[in-house]
Structure formats: structure tokens, C-alpha cells
């Protein structure tokens, strides 16, 4: 298949988005939305598979540029709608369209009967358009279009149940916090343009003129030539990455984003959009490598976020929130991986995480669906008898997340931690050793909190409370039409098409089918990155064939890593595998004891540590602190400015307006209509003029 077909990958979902948008207006067309969306995503996936077949053939190592149309061109700035395809792009496209298709199929069942059915699929299609544009962009401005585009879709989908004030607030928060990061990103783009005079990645020729791309500029620079402004670039870009990928201190929006429908949480807030930051750093690694402090900063922030978010996840009771904090934590791992120059590890973890975290969210969605919106794990127990398939699917996801030996998460997490330890032990900074140990400790916490959820929900005696979704506005199973407000009250009350079971129940195979695919991925995807005896793996070849391949710094560090590092008498990778396996099993066992066999013990423990437990339950009071330190003062400033505007600035203008009036008051007395006065005035005037004339002469 010609590689040119890749152009259609974003535009098929875009067309689907328009179509689904039209479906919103017509009641009969509404059910068409899901099939159209799914078809567009699946065709995108198939095209990507075709393009993958061209790796090494039509798709060369240097990357291929596909021009679609001219977008912004003025005065030397050249930002076209052009795509850049290399192996990293293909990998990301596989994740986005693959997971996207599976989630869309699941959602076709999950969202059935909702009045915003077509709107949901319109937003999902639009999201896939933006996300594929993001990963395929050949220039930073187009990448930024995708970047903000996924932000918009995230906003629309978090606020999907828009009548719930909490959902609206969460959507707003997500957009605004992301905007803070995006400002850094935008300034980074401007600085790149200022320094390099270009914003596109690849070098291309148009009308006989060669336009060297960013990567070529970077490779030409030697580290000695790098000037201060260039050193700043990665830090600005980083801000954008931290916002989109929910890292410290911009992570606050992601847990709240769980207000959206669960398929959205799985697709956007776990598998794809939030990994955009990792992708961006991997893609722009040549720029990040120019600054000696940039990647270490990324590593520290990643490691700190991983640990920080994992501690919060220990004491959350809402299943989706546990997984949300877990996502923040896992994203931290990815940043750690990229930061310690193991782009392979970072991207590998991105890849495996997409499988198991999407699986976890979707199974959590099934539980929520089965229990009519119930998400509080204190109010459910022993659901394995009611939802056996969901139970074991989630079990697979939990194993992968916990890093149980030979599951997907095990290999990728190990690769990152080993890379960090390797750098630490070869004397490139104790910082890396600390980060590696923190990562290991996080792995222990992860295993514990993951299985805490699973044991609480599925093990133990079977008892549960149904949620209140029937009464709540969010998932009212009316068949009304969005563009037809009268429809849902008059006609549909007696015509509910989709029945909600009134007891916990298993999902149909429309919803469980995609989950099985994800579960297989969660179990087996790790082998794709597992190095064979000669040290090669499919994933390594993907990274080496792309811009994400760290060259500069690896060469600089080459002097250190001649021999294989040893730890505990074993080769480092083996040692790390053993340690993390032990930690994973230990975490699972502790969770089993506290949340399956001896639940009262867990409660007693929480009571003994009630202070810490409360701090964790309240997420370290970060939201409250931010509200008090940033939001409230800013709003106060707004009020002050408004008052200042009305009183001082407008007041000054009005005061100026009084000047002629006062002047008028002053001379009004002379205009009193008495002839004598006018006579005197005339005489004086004539006299003054006469004197003046005499003086001039």
C-alpha cells in the first residue's frame, strides 16, 4: 500500500465527526453515529498497519514528509498541514487508532440509550482527528493544533454530562490547567522559530529551495555552539508536556477528569491524550539533548510524580480515581524513562500502559454500568459471582499494572528502572540511583493499591449497593433527541428502549469483546520490547529508526558504560527483574491480606494512622491550596481591576469632561444680559487690540 494513504488517517475521523455532528440533529440518524465513528477508526487502524508494512521500504529511516495543504505561511514562517512519518509516528498511530477503535466499539454498547449518543461519537471522532494530527505533525505549529484540539475534545467529553456542575467544573479545570502548560509550549515554539528560523521537523525541498528542518539544525550544532536561549527551549516545551501529561505541579486536572464517561477516561485520560507529553519529548529529543539540564529535570519530575501520585492512590475509594492517580504515576514512569535517555523504555511503557490502563478503566466502567453508577469500592464486594468475565479481565489488567512477572507492565517498567539504576551505578549522578529506588518503591505501592481495588470489588462476601444513576441526570435512559428538546419529556417516558437491569449484571459481548483484545495485549505486549539474545527487539528498532533515538548524550556517556553493571551479583537487568518481581508479589500479598482475608485489619490500620490517611484521602490538600493561593487572589485582582476601571479610569475621563463645564460656569456670569457689562467688555477688548497693534508696529 502506498504510504500516501496515511494522509487519510486523520481525515476519515474528521469526516466522521462532521457526520456524527449532523446526526445530533436528527433522531433517526442518531444510531448511525457509532458505526460511522467505528468504521472511520478501524480504517485508520488498517491504513496504519499498511504503512507499518512499509517500514524499511517506502518509509525510510529519515522519515517521510507528506504535504496536505498550505496552512500558515507568512514572512519566512512556514507551517503547513504536512505529516511526518517515521517509525515512532507509526507506533503512536497504532496505539491511537487501535485503542481508539476498541474503545469506540465498547462505547457503542456503553453509551447506548444516552441522549447525547451522537454528540459523544462526534467528539470521539474529532478527538482521533486531533490526536492523529498531533502524532503525525511535521511542524510544531501543527503539533500544537493537535495538542489544543485534543484539549478541546477532552473539555467537551469531561463535560459530557453537562448538567452536572461537577462535570462542568472539571472540564473547565482541565482546559485551563492545560492552557498554562500550553503557554509554555507556545513560547517554546516561538523561541525555536527565533533561534532556528524554522518550525518544521524534516528537511524538505520546495520549488528547488531546500528548507532545512529542526532536526538537521540540531544535529549541525555542537554542544559548544549552543547559546543560552537554546538552553531555555526544552524547559518551555517541558511545561507543555507536564500540563498535558499531568505531571507535578500541573497534574491536578486529571483526577477530576474522571467526571467524563468511562470510555473517555480510558481512551483520552489513560491511553492516548495524556501520553502526548511523553511523545512530544521523545519526538523532540534532539532539542532536549542540546541542554544538559533538561532531561535530568524531566527525570526528576517524572520520578517525583510517580511516587507522589502513587501515595495518593493508596487511600482513594472511588475506583476510577484510584486508576486516575495510577495513570499520573505511570506517566511519571514514562517521563523518568525518557529523562534517563531510555526513550525505548518510556515509549515502551506508553505502549503497554495503553493496553492495560484502557482495560482497567473499561472494566471499571463495566462495574459502574452493572451497578448503576456505583464507584465507591466501600459499597461493593465479591462481585466475581455477578460479573465473572469482568472480574477476570480486570484481574489481567491489575497484574499488568502491578508489574507481575512476564506481563506487559513488567517488562516496560523494568526497562525504565534498570536504565535509571544503570546511570546511577555507573557514576553519572547519585540522583539517578535515588530515582531508581524511588521507582522501585513506587512499584511496590502500585502493586498494593491496584490489588486493593480488585480484592475489594471482586473478592470477599457478595454484597453491594446500587448507584443512583436512575435518579441522576447523567445517564437518564431516555431516548430523546438533543436537537429536539420536547421529545424526551412527552414521547420517551413511555418508550424507554434500553433497559437498565436493576441488579448487578455482566456486560454483553459487544462490550466484553474489545476488552478481551486489550487483555491479550496487556498479557503479551511486553514481549515486543523484550530483547532477544542479541539485544534486539522490535521496539528498539522502532526507536532507533526515529528522531527519538538518543545519540548525542549516549555518546557522551559512552565512556561510562563499557561493561555491564552488576547488582547483587547479577547482571543489572536480571537483578532489577528479580527485585521488581519480588516487590510486585509482596504488594499483591499485602493487599490480599488487608483487603480480602482480614478486612478489619485494614480499617484498624487506617485508624492508627488516621492523620496520614486523612492527608492522603484529601490528596495532600493540593486543590485547596491552589484555590487559596492562585484562584482566589486572581479573582480578587479581577474585582480590583474592575473597581479601578469604573472609579479611577472612567472617573478621570468624566473629570476631564467637567473641565469645559467648569469653564462655562466661570464665564457664565459675564453673560447676564446687562448692556453695561457688554459695553465695558467691548471697550476693554478694543483697547487691548489697539495696544497690541501699536506694540507690533
Amino acid at each position, binding site marked *: 500500500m502506498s504510504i500516501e494513504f496515511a494522509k487519510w488517517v486523520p481525515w476519515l475521523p474528521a469526516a466522521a465527526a462532521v457526520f456524527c455532528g449532523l446526526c*445530533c*440533529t436528527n433522531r433517526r440518524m442518531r444510531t448511525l453515529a457509532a458505526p460511522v465513528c467505528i468504521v472511520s477508526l478501524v480504517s485508520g487502524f488498517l491504513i496504519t498497519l499498511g504503512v507499518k508494512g512499509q517500514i524499511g521500504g517506502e518509509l525510510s529511516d529519515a522519515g517521510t514528509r507528506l504535504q496536505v*495543504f*498550505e*496552512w*500558515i*505561511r*507568512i*514572512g*519566512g*514562517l512556514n507551517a503547513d*498541514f504536512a505529516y511526518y512519518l517515521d517509525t515512532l509516528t507509526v507506533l503512536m498511530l497504532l496505539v491511537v487508532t487501535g485503542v481508539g477503535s476498541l474503545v469506540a466499539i465498547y462505547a457503542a454498547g456503553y453509551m447506548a440509550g444516552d441522549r447525547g449518543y451522537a454528540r459523544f461519537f462526534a467528539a470521539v471522532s474529532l478527538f482521533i482527528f486531533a490526536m492523529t494530527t498531533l502524532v503525525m505533525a511535521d511542524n510544531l*505549529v501543527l503539533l*500544537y*493544533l493537535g*495538542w*489544543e*484540539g485534543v484539549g*478541546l475534545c477532552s*473539555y467537551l467529553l469531561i*463535560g459530557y454530562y*453537562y*448538567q452536572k*456542575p461537577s462535570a*462542568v*467544573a472539571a*472540564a*473547565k479545570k482541565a*482546559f*485551563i490547567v492545560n*492552557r*498554562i502548560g*500550553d*503557554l509554555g509550549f*507556545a*513560547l517554546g*515554539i*516561538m*523561541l525555536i*522559530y*527565533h533561534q532556528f528560523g524554522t518550525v518544521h521537523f524534516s528537511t524538505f525541498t520546495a520549488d528547488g529551495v531546500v528548507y532545512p528542518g529542526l532536526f538537521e539544525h540540531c544535529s549541525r550544532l555542537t554542544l559548544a555552539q549552543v547559546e543560552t536561549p537554546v538552553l531555555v527551549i526544552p524547559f518551555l516545551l517541558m511545561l507543555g508536556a507536564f500540563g498535558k501529561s499531568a505531571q507535578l505541579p500541573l497534574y491536578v486536572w486529571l483526577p477530576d477528569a474522571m467526571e467524563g464517561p468511562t470510555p473517555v477516561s480510558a481512551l483520552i485520560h489513560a491511553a492516548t491524550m495524556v501520553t502526548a507529553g511523553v511523545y512530544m519529548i521523545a519526538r523532540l529529543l534532539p532539542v532536549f539533548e542540546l541542554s544538559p539540564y533538561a532531561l535530568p529535570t524531566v527525570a526528576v519530575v517524572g520520578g517525583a510524580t510517580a511516587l507522589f501520585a502513587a501515595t495518593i492512590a493508596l487511600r482513594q475509594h472511588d475506583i476510577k480515581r484510584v486508576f486516575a492517580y495510577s495513570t499520573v504515576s505511570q506517566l511519571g514512569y514514562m517521563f523518568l524513562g525518557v529523562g534517563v535517555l531510555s526513550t525505548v523504555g518510556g515509549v515502551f511503557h506508553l505502549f503497554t500502559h495503553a493496553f492495560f490502563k484502557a482495560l482497567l478503566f473499561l472494566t471499571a466502567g463495566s462495574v459502574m454500568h452493572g451497578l448503576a453508577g456505583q464507584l465507591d469500592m466501600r459499597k461493593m464486594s465479591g462481585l466475581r459471582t455477578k460479573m465473572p468475565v469482568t472480574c477476570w479481565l480486570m484481574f489481567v489488567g491489575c497484574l499488568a499494572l502491578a508489574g507481575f512477572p512476564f506481563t506487559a507492565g513488567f517488562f516496560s517498567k523494568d526497562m525504565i528502572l534498570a536504565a535509571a539504576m544503570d546511570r546511577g551505578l555507573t557514576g553519572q549522578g547519585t540522583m539517578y540511583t535515588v530515582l531508581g529506588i524511588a521507582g522501585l518503591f513506587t512499584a511496590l505501592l502500585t502493586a498494593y493499591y491496584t490489588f486493593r481495588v480488585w480484592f475489594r470489588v471482586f473478592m470477599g462476601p457478595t454484597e453491594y449497593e446500587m448507584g443512583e444513576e436512575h435518579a441522576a441526570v447523567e445517564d437518564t435512559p431516555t431516548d430523546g433527541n*438533543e*436537537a429536539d*428538546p420536547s421529545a424526551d419529556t412527552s414521547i420517551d417516558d413511555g418508550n424507554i428502549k434500553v433497559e437498565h437491569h436493576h441488579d448487578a449484571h455482566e456486560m454483553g459481548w459487544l462490550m466484553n469483546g474489545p476488552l478481551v483484545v486489550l487483555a491479550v495485549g496487556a498479557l503479551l505486549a511486553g514481549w515486543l520490547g523484550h530483547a532477544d539474545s542479541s539485544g534486539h527487539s522490535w521496539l528498539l528498532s522502532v526507536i532507533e529508526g526515529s528522531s527519538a533515538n538518543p545519540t548525542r548524550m549516549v555518546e557522551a556517556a559512552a565512556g561510562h558504560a563499557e561493561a555491564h553493571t552488576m547488582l547483587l551479583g547479577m547482571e543489572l537487568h536480571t537483578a532489577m527483574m528479580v527485585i521488581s518481581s519480588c516487590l510486585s508479589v509482596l504488594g499483591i500479598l499485602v493487599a490480599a491480606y488487608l483487603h480480602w482475608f482480614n478486612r478489619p485489619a485494614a480499617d484498624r490500620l487506617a485508624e492508627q494512622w488516621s492523620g496520614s490517611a486523612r492527608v492522603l484521602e484529601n490528596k495532600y490538600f493540593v486543590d485547596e491550596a491552589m484555590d487559596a493561593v492562585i484562584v482566589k487572589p*486572581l*479573582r480578587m*485582582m*479581577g*474585582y480590583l*481591576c*474592575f473597581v479601578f*476601571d469604573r472609579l479611577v*479610569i*472612567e472617573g478621570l*475621563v468624566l473629570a476631564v*469632561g467637567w473641565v469645559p463645564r467648569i469653564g462655562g460656569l466661570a464665564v457664565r456670569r459675564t453673560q447676564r444680559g446687562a448692556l453695561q457689562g457688554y459695553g465695558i467688555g467691548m471697550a476693554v477688548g478694543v483697547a487691548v487690540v489697539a495696544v497690541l497693534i501699536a506694540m507690533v508696529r
Partner: protein
Amino acid sequence: MQLSMLIPMMVVLPLLSGAALLLLPSGGKAIKAHALIGTLATLGVSLLVVCRFDWSESQAIQMASAIGWVEGFGLSFGFGIDAISLWLVLLTTVLMPLVVLGSFSSVTHRFKEFYGWLMVLEAAMIGTFVATDLIFFYICFEFTLVPLYLLIGVFGGTQRLRAAKMFFLYTFTGSMLTFAGVLYVAWFNTTLPWTLFEGAGRWTFDIRTLYGSAQAMSHGQQVWVLIALLSGFAVKVPLFPVHTWLPLAHTEAPTSGSVILAGVLLKLGTYGLLRFALPMTPWAVVTIGPYIGAFAVAGILYTALICWVQKDIKKLIAYSSVSHLGFCVLGMFALNSVGVGGSILYMINHGLSTGALFLCVGMIYERMHTREMSRMGGLARIMPVWAFFMVFFCMASVGLPGLNGFVGEFLTLMGAFVATDVLGPAYAAIAGVGMILGAIYVLYMVGRVVFGPVVTLGPSLGDPSDGHGVRTDDLNWREIGVLSPLAVGCLWLGLFPTTVLQTLEAPIEGIIEPTRSILDGGVYGKGVTIDSDSERIDRDSDFPAARRVLVLFDTDRIAQP
């Protein structure tokens, strides 16, 4: 028909159809239809101009002609069009039929006056953009005040008289000073030797001729002229801190008035700065530009914060206009093609998206009879089509890439960022905070009005629980027809801005050439400079302007040939 007659037709057609309105019977329908046909015909003529325009020569004044007036004094109705003017004319002629169509249900009395004055306003606005004669420009510029004064004063809200008076006096006072500056430049031209360049040494108000004479002024003279120009144009933009007339005028104006005010009239200010300040007083612009940029940045942040605490949805959008126009001015004073191009695009974008937002708000006001955000909410549930348009235009307004707002915003910031010789990264970084604040206040509004639980309380006067007269029907086809072209325009300019940008590049080069040559140390002015050391006059010599030599014209010392 001669090609050059197209432009006067564009100006006269709305005037004539406005006059013809008076002959019609006073029934509503005929007048509405007539007004719509009149504006559509004008749109047709402007599209004809677009077709006949030679895009390869987009910087040239095309279809130029002049109708003599007081020729001894150099006055004429000179007109002509280049790409910048053409796009702004097109913005006007596209908006007008939509404004007329959008007013069908909101105006309930005095149809003749209303639509008549709208047509006069259109003629004046088009006249401003096509004038190549300063006095003609100034007449049109000032004459826009009269129709709008009446539109606000007669058809406005409860405080309409105060708003109309403030609007009129504020902008009128400013532009009187501008007029003084213009006259000074014209007078200065008469003092120049006639050999200097074509048109020097006599009374003329031809804009291009006056560029040359104003450029020949000393730095001090240029500063005074720039201040005079600013006092009119900055009020019109409006630039912080002379913006206080705008929120009041917008809130009290009828929807149509607000749309025209935000859509086109504010652009007269930025257009004036672009057309006059930049090429006429380049030297002063280079030295004062950073301060103007600072005011623009301050205005962006200051008004954005104010937006966030508004309770009246229309006032919020009005203040946001001030914030947006700050970007526009910032990009313009970056004095590079990226910044100025972004600035011009921003003028068009803002006209479309903010105009559309005012239309959306007007449609809500017609139904709810209130603009208080606390008295409405969750309208997405009951008016989904309206909600779609509202969110769409809000996203265009916060600069979402793919829609038009982004291109202008990004280019103006980028222009300011890379213009290290005038503004620099600090300006862009601080102004960029406006992007965040913009998202905050717009989403605050959307969150309250479009999303959330349904609230339709209606006006707070009278019985608050009653909601008397509140309608919650969704948009009808006419209203969808008003908003759709604007939405298409926003999307088109977001995806294909290059079609506009490419035509702007050449005219921008011409406009920023004098300032650029000062900044780059090249030749300045029409090759006429005086070496400050030897007081010798060099004509047509390559004089390095980097030395910032003062150009002093002492007419006595110039040898008459």
C-alpha cells in the same frame, strides 16, 4: 462600465438604498426586504471587486480614481483599494446583510430610521477603507459616529442616552486631535521644496504623498504627529487606558450596533494606525512603539481579569474586545511581517467571532429579556443548536487552533516575540498570559450559561419567579442562516489563512518598509536626509539611517533649481 467605478458604487449603493427606504411605505416587511437586498447588492459589488482585483499586485492601489472637489486646496474624493483595504471592505459587506437579517426580530419600531441609518453606516465604513485622500478618509471616519450615535441612542437599552453621548464625545474629542495632526502634515508638505518628490510643496491630501512629507519630519515633529494620530485611533481601537467608552456603548447598543461596533468600527482604529501611523511617522513609531506595546500588553491582562468578574454576558464580551484588540496592536507594533500580518488577520477574525458572539447573545436577550448570567444557565439542554454556535464561537475567540482566532493570536505573539529590536520575548510572554486568562473568562461564561443545570429566570425586575415572557425555543432557520456563514468563515480562516496572508505580504512590506529601514539601518525616507554634522543635504543618496540622523528641513537652505 469602467473598472474604477466599482468602488464608488460600493460606497454609493448603500447610501442610495438607504435614501430609497424613505420612499417606501412604513410597513415592516418591505423595509426589511429592501434593506436586505441593499446590503446584499453591496456585497455583490464587493465580490465583483474581489474578482477584478489583480492579486499578483496586491500592494498596489488598484481601481484608483479621484473625483475632484476643492482642487485648489488639493481636496478630492480619491479612492482605490489594495489587499488590506479589500479584506476589510469584504468583512464589512459580509457582516452587513447578516446584521440586517439578525435584526428582523429584535427591532420592533421605527424600521425606516433603523435600517436607513444602518445603510448610511455601511457607506461610511466602506468609504473609510477605500479612501486614498486624507480628508475623504477623515470625513468617512467621523461620519460613522452619527449613525451609530442614533442607533445606540434610539434603539439601545435603558442607559442608551448616556452611552451614546459618552461614545460620541469620547471618540469625537480624540479624532479632533487626529484631524489637527493630519492638517499639520498637510501644511508641512506645502513647506517642502517641490523638487523633493512628486506632490511636495503644495496643498494635497493624497495619503501616499503625505507619507513622504511626514517621513521627512524631524523626530520631535513625528512624535507629535504620532501622538495626534494615536489620540483618535487609540480611542477607537480602544487601547487601554482610553477604553472606558466601549463597555458602556456595547452593553447599551442594540445587537446590530454591537456587532458593527465590534466587527468593523473598532478596526477603523487599527486600520488608521496601520495606514497612517506606521508609514508616516516611522521614526516616532520605532521609539514610542515599545511603550504602545506595553499599553497593549497591560490592556490584554487588565481587561481579561475584568472580564472574569462580569455578571452581564454582553459586558463580558465587550471587555474581551478590549483584550483582543490589545493583541492586534501588539502585533502591529512588532513591525515585522509576521506580527503585522497576524494583526490584520486578527482584525478580520475578531470581526467574525466577536460579531457572532454578540449575535448569539442578542438571540438570547430576545428570548430571556436579560443578559445577567445568574438568571440563565444550562441552555445547552433546551437550545442545543444555539449552544453549538455559542461554544463554537467561544472556541474561536479563545484561539483554538483550527479556528480563525488562533492564527491571529499566534502570529501576533510570534511577531512580538521575534521582534527583539522593538518588543521582544518578554512582551510575548506576558501577553501570552492573556491566552490563559482568555480561557478562564470564556469558559467561566460558557460554564454558567451554556452548561450546568437549566435556569431560565428571565429579568430580575418584577416577579422573579414568574419568568414572564421568557421563551426557550431554539434557533429558527433565519437565525441559523445568520450564524452559519460566520461559522464557516471562522473555520475557513482557521484552516486556510494563507489565502489571506499571501495577499497581505506585499502590502505589509510596503507599510513596514520605512520602520524596517530605520531598524535595520538602511535607507530612510525618500532618500532625502540631512547629515547632522555638515548640515549638507543629500538627495537620493544611500544614507545609513542607523546613525539616526535628524531630518531637518530648512526650506531656505535648499537650493531651488
